[in-house]
């Protein structure tokens, strides 16, 4: 590096390396920056919202499972017995319970969405309260469904 002489005399010139100006700006910026997502606490409304999306995608994939069960169980007496047999396996019970959980959560949160679309519960407090109700109601339904499936 040919500039040693100058850096000794003018330490600040160290910053003057050629490069994107945004780097210099970021270094100079006084804004507090938090890029660590693990330390950002999400509000309860963010959880109920993203769960609604996740459960929607699970349901989209789950349509295949539901149609398969419907197809087999309606095709014949034997098919019906086969679906009943599948349903006695713990793994299948778990999958069915998972799908029903996604359905119930999506349904409860979806009904709340529709209620909010009519203009009810749209304040910050109402939003938090609604989210809590959605989580509690769907948790109860999901537990009951677990009991029912097993």
């Amino acid at each position: 590096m040919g500039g040693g002489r100058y850096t000794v005399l003018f330490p600040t010139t160290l910053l003057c390396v050629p490069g994107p100006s945004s780097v210099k700006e970021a270094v100079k910026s006084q804004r507090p920056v938090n890029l660590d997502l693990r330390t950002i606490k999400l509000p309860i409304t963010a959880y109920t919202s993203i769960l609604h999306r996740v459960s929607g995608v699970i349901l989209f994939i789950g349509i295949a499972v539901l149609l398969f069960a419907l197809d087999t169980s309606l095709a014949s007496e034997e098919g019906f017995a086969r679906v009943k047999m599948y349903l006695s396996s713990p793994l299948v019970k778990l999958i069915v319970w998972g799908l029903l959980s996604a359905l119930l959560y999506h349904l409860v949160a979806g009904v709340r969405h529709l209620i909010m679309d009519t203009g009810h519960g749209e304040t910050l407090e109402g939003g938090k309260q609604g989210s809590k109700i959605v989580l509690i109601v769907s948790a109860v339904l999901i537990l009951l469904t677990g009991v029912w499936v097993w």
Partner: protein
Amino acid sequence: MVTNVTNFSRSGLFDWMAQRVSAVVLAAYFIFLLGYLVVHPGLNYAQWAGFFSGNLMRIFSLLALVAVSVHAWVGMWTISTDYLTPMALGKYATVVRFLFQAACGIAMFAFFVWGVQILWGI
């Protein structure tokens, strides 16, 4: 007005409404179906097939099938336009998003045809 060539109806407001109307149909259908299963614990094949082959139930099932097709298309489309963006994927975003939407559309169409075959088979 913002228009888009890949959404369901070329109008965001119509898509929004279609998703809500289909949601109500699906909610009614699934509550009815789960209710039926809960009150018929020891179900046998004859009851089950009889339940689905009734004319009203056929209409209801077909309606739910149409509703889920519309609902899932609008839903998956929304998700694809939220995440598969130039900001996330750079210059290939449009191609990736289009392929994702095409895959969802083909899957949903296959589900629809399969559902019709099931309902007409009994």
